[in-house]
């Protein structure tokens, strides 16, 4: 693969260079009013807005609220998703029984069902967290299931031959064997949960990045909208770094890991 190992350094520099070039172009285009500046503020304005929102406004507080919601939801939805996914990937009967229900529940619109959920679970924290949790449940489940199914059968044979109990197989074969896909699920799940967190905040919360997005639209301060989107993007980058860290930690055999 690494025929002519392109300078590692060069590779790391390219994305920032592209980014800066793009921003430069945008700055030019918007300053020239080629795009309407009402809806497309120059990047420098967005950056200074970001700075203002951080220092004067409570951007970081909002960010903290969103991240808390996101992580709580992800833990509450992703981990059950992973566990059920392991069972479903591992055992044909479990898969046969659960998969139709999973398939049917997956597309139930989460945000639209929120009011119904609020009747059952109240108007507070629980309902808001449930939709976020449900959102990451599915990618975790489906990826874990696919990940377990691709584990070579010989590893199950070896484990059984070594006298592993079902729990041990789960912990020492199913889980590590599916890790690369569980981690892809983590990445997808965290992002979906983030989207749903924002949507929930847009509707209901008085804190969070989603609230800021709503506010930006309502007041038509488009530069604030972009500033919040940049914040969301930063969360996205953190998610990637986190998943990458997990990969390098738990997938030692993927020599191509050091991305």
């Amino acid at each position: 693969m690494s025929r002519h190992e392109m300078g590692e350094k060069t590779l790391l520099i390219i994305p920032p260079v592209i980014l800066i070039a793009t921003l430069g172009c945008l700055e030019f285009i918007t300053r020239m009013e080629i795009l309407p500046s009402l809806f497309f503020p120059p990047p420098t304005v967005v950056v200074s807005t970001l700075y203002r929102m951080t220092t004067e406004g409570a951007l970081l507080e909002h960010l903290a609220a969103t991240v808390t919601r996101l992580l709580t939801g992800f833990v509450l939805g992703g981990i059950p998703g992973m566990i059920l996914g392991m069972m479903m990937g591992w055992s044909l009967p479990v898969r046969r029984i659960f998969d139709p229900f999973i398939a049917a529940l997956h597309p139930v619109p989460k945000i639209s069902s929120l009011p119904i959920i609020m009747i059952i679970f109240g108007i507070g924290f629980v309902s808001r967290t449930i939709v976020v949790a449900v959102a990451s449940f599915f990618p975790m489940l489906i990826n874990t299931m696919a990940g377990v199914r691709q584990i070579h059968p010989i590893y199950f044979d070896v484990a059984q031959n070594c006298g592993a109990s079902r729990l041990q197989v789960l912990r020492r074969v199913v889980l590590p064997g599916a890790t690369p896909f569980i981690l892809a699920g983590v990445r997808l799940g965290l992002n979906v949960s983030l989207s749903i967190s924002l949507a929930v905040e847009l509707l209901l919360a008085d804190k969070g990045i989603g609230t800021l997005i709503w506010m930006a639209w309502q007041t038509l301060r488009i530069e604030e909208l972009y500033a919040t989107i940049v914040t969301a993007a930063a969360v996205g980058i953190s998610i990637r770094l986190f998943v990458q860290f997990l990969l390098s930690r738990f997938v030692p055999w993927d020599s191509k890991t050091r991305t």
Partner: protein
Amino acid sequence: MSFECRNLAVTYKTQSGGLEALTDVSFTVSKNEFVCLLGPSGCGKSTILKIVAGLLDPTAGEVIFQTQGTNGKPLNAMVFQEHGVFPWMNVLENVAFGLEMRGVGRQERNEISHKFIERVGLAHFEQSYPHELSVGMRQRVSIARAFVNDPEILLMDEPFGSLDAMTKLVMMEELLRIWSAEKKQVLYVTHDIEEAILLGDRVLVMTGRPGRIREDIRIPLPRPRDLRDRDKAEIIEIKEHIWTILEEEVRSSLEGSQ
């Protein structure tokens, strides 16, 4: 203890219906016996081992075990033809896996494993992951794992196939040492006729697919045997005999395929 295979038959499900891999396979492995299994490629040797290990249900027939108290030893341990070394565990963890499953504490299992890792010549590689090993090294990991498991029955599917002649010899000596010291039963699949004769109390020679036991040859060599001394008249005689059978079986299956 001993075990007996009775009229085993296996038909694999395939797209095009079924593939008859084994038919009417019966044999017994008695207490402390070392039995070798020889046969043309694809005749069902691995399939037999998987059935004995309880990893595959035969389509017909059964395996009957006569055990008397297991002393906490696992019933059987298998060296898989494809090694089956976990890529997500380093060499030490791979070798210690069976002990870990039996709840042996970390310190103790590392000590035991360490000993066997040394014997297979991988002491420098305890912390390495399988993708950093050569094929032969991975095979040795899987051998060490089976030895560490210390089972009553050792099932070995071409365990030394990827090792150079000399390393293979050392491993075979180790195997014989363990076997004679602890009096296990060994069912040993190999492609090397000489190897089978040198190691086994009996050699079972199989037919081509669908596999049956064609001949059950008792090896009259005394123990302990010198694995380097391959030119004894008895050995050569048996070798020739087996060779003839094999030739017949392979020729017919190769021709049948044309």
